[in-house]
Structures are given as structure tokens and as C-alpha cells.
């Protein structure tokens, strides 16, 4: 059995198609949803762990791409460049998981990476660009 965490971004025009159903039916894959959000202009983001044989997995992913879904490996993580963070709080407007939250009454903005679903919404929302996407395996080399 092969499994991987994937981040699927559904552009507005494909968001209503029953794509994930076909993954199960036609490619014999099972999944576990880790995070799902539908955003402005109806863009959807689904973070799921996908299980199946390696072959089915590969075909399933190509099927997703053909349908116009952006597929990304979740083996990335979000890091905060602490020296760039001004603790303004703007990111807490978009963070869907509470990974970015405000500690009261100090009004310090905390980042709890364990809660982060790597949806990347905070990256462009942070005015000082303190939130960065990085492949996880790089951590070993740093």
C-alpha cells in the first residue's frame, strides 16, 4: 500500500465536479480528508492522504491533473521567519486551522506548526512575507 499527503487546489470551474468520487470508484484509491475549504471565487482546497497501489496512485494523480486540479505534494511545510514577523495579526484572518492565533492579552501572534495544514493562504496574506513554504526534507540539510 502506498500513501501520500496531497494538497489539491480546485479552480472555480471544477469545484463542483465529483472528482474525488471518481478517484475512489475508477482508481480504487481510498482517502482521508485532513482539511477542506472552499474559498472566494469558489476555489477549493482539499488536503488529503491518498492510499492505494503505486500504479493506481500515479494514474489517479494524472486524472486529477487532467481535470484541471492543481496537485501538490504535502511534503512541504510552512515556516515563519520570526525576525520578519511584526505580530500584526493580518494572517489570522485567513488561517483556516488556527495554526496562527493570537495570544491575549499580550496580542502576540503565535504560529503552531503542528496545526498547520500547509494551505499556504497566509503566504500572500502576510504583509511582511514572514510565512514561507519549504520542502520538509530540506530541514535535514540546514
Amino acid at each position, binding site marked *: 500500500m502506498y500513501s501520500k499527503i496531497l494538497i489539491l487546489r480546485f479552480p472555480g470551474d471544477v469545484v463542483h465536479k465529483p472528482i474525488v468520487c471518481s478517484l475512489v470508484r475508477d482508481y480504487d484509491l481510498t482517502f482521508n480528508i485532513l482539511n477542506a475549504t472552499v474559498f472566494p*471565487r469558489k476555489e477549493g482546497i482539499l488536503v488529503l492522504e491518498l492510499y492505494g497501489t503505486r500504479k493506481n496512485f500515479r494514474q489517479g494523480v494524472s486524472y486529477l491533473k487532467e481535470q484541471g486540479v492543481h496537485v501538490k505534494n504535502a511534503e512541504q511545510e510552512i515556516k515563519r521567519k520570526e525576525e520578519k514577523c511584526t505580530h500584526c495579526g493580518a494572517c489570522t484572518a485567513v488561517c483556516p486551522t488556527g495554526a496562527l492565533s493570537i495570544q491575549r492579552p499580550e496580542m502576540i501572534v503565535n504560529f503552531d506548526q503542528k496545526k498547520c495544514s500547509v494551505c499556504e493562504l497566509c503566504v500572500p496574506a502576510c*504583509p511582511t512575507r514572514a510565512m514561507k513554504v519549504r520542502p520538509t526534507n530540506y530541514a535535514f540539510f540546514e
Partner: protein
Amino acid sequence: MKEHKINKTYQEINEKIRSGEVVVVTAEEMIDIVKDEGPVEAARRVDVVTTGTFAPMCSSGAFINFGHSVPGIKASEVWLNNVPAYGGVAAVDCYLGATQPCEDDPLNKVYPGEFNYGGGHVIQDLLAGKKIHLKATAYGTTCYPNRMIEKKVTLETLPSATLCNPRNGYQNYNCAINLNKKTVYTYMGALKPRAGNANYCSAGQLSPLFNDPYYKTIGLGTRIFLGGGTGYVTWHGTQHKPSADRTEKGVPVTPAGTLFVMGDLKQMRPEWLVGVSIQGYGCSLAVGLGVPIPILNEEMAQYTAVSDEDIFTQIIDYGHDYGNGISKTYGQVSYAELKSGSIKLNGEDVPTVPLSSMVKAREIADILKKQISEGTFLLGEPQFTLPV
């Protein structure tokens, strides 16, 4: 008969600063002092209250003189790291505005745009000691025959650079919601549909103008903390509107007073002038600003004791109303409610999102307090105060 029980002059307070006897507290510390001791005692004991705010302040920029070249040029168009600066000042002077995006920025072509680099970022890069690429073009004259120059400049090599912000430190600002059906990206941040969040941008009880609501001590010549260095209030800021509605205590309930501030960029710091990218809106500069308020009498002690419970603002719809010039309020909320993390709107809880950093605002008030206590920062007595 004197109007107040306690009467101090700027000179007396500065004398105390020089001799090290001065008593300085931050605007947050002052709240309890006045509550416990009353304004008269507080005014007897405390000489200066420090304030602070750190937030994107769009109406900011710098006058930069980049030095004469041989042959000379009278620059008409100027770019710094590809960000256009206004060249119609004099031969080699320009004004770089914080909100100017760089020339090839895709802007909002793919909405919401990211606005990764603009005038505010150039200012921060200069302060960080980075080399900036400067290009200037001209039509050529007899006295200034050159038509184009390109060179690398740093803050150190520039003959002069002056931060000059026509509108900073807004006394109060709206609380923004979005009653639209889709998310909007505004200068008040990302606003989710159907009032999914309420964003606000003020340091509240620490914010300079809330602590001197009628500008009794602030005017031309007030020495301030600006961008990590020393600056001055030089005028009332653009859109200064002292006539805004006020509470009984004199605190305006809508955007009111503003400050025009200046200072030598060369002594400022990149941690306190931070280039920012506001999704879907544009570039700007987050400015660290702090004003010391002299406690000349018990009236000033009372003003500086203002707390978040006493400060209110209006809930405004940025999904439709604001852009269309409709000034309709969906309710009045206090900064105490806003800072608690959620407000009530038509009986429903709406999570609140700050855009102004309280952490940095507190740091500024503390720095000013330390500088004044140590005798390295004297008060500047205004020549005249801001219009009321």
C-alpha cells in the same frame, strides 16, 4: 486663580529629564495610576506618558537627493530598484512614495495581486544598507546636458534622505467587515463574505492621538520616535478632521486627527520602517511612531488615562459601501471588544483581526520611556498645536 492644580512647563520637565529625576510611564501603565491615585496626584507624580503605534501607514515616503553627476542631469523621471519616484522636484531630488509598486508589477491582473515590491520596500532596503539601483532620465538642457544616468546608491552615499509622511498616526480608524458574498482583499486586509471577520487597525489605548484627543501638546516641533530614530511632527496630516463626533471624554468615534511627520532617514532602522505587501491592494510601509505626552497638568493626566473601554469605532462594510462612498455604520464597538477576539454583529459573534501590532506599539512606548528616563530624549515644545 489658576485653571489647574498642577502646572508644569516643558522647560521644567526637560530640566527633570536632564537631571534624571523625570518620572515616565507608558500610556498603558498610566491607566491604573490615574485610576488608583486620581488625575491630580498622577499629574503631580508623572511627568511624561509615552505612546506608540506600528502599522501600515500609506501616506509615507522619502525625499531623496541622489547627488550631481558629471555631466549634470536634471532628472525628470527617476526609478529606485525599478520603483518610480517623482522627479519633478529639482535636478537631483525626488520623492519616493511608499505605495508606488515597481514598474513591472502585475498589479491586480490576477486578483488578488501580491504586490511584492514597492516604495516602502525600497525605503526598508536602504535602511538595511542594501545597494539600490538608481536610474534617471532627462530631456537635457544647457546647464544639465545629461539625459540618462544609472548608478548604485546606498543610504550612506546619498547626500540626503528625509522621511516625510504627510499622513500618519490616524486618530481612530474604521472596523472593516464585508457583507458581500465573496471574499474581498482590501487595505483593511482579507475580509471573508457575510461578515466572516472584522478587521481593525489601531493601537487603541497606546495610540498617540487617543492620549491627547484635543492635541493640546502636539504640534509643529513635537519630538517623536519615528522609524527607530528621532523625528518631528511638522504639521497636521492630510485629512486631519478634528470635527469628528466625540464621546463625552473627547475621544473621536470615527477617523479624526492625523499627523504630518518628518525625520532624517539616515538615523532610522529597518525594523521600524517595514515595507509591506497588502494582498489585492498594494504596497505600503509599516511605520513605527511614538509620541511622548507631557503631563503639564491634571487634565493631561486624565486624557492619557484613556483605556480601550473608552475608545469606540464604527463597523463599516468594505464589500460594497466603502468603495461606493456610502458612509453607513453597522454599529459602534469599543477597542476592548475588538481586542477580545470577537464582536457582536446583529447578535452573532464575528472574530476580530488586528492589523496594527500591539507588540511593536508597546516596544516603542518602552523605548521612548527608556530614552527619556536616561536623559537621551528631550521633549520638543510645539510652536503651535494642531488645529482643533
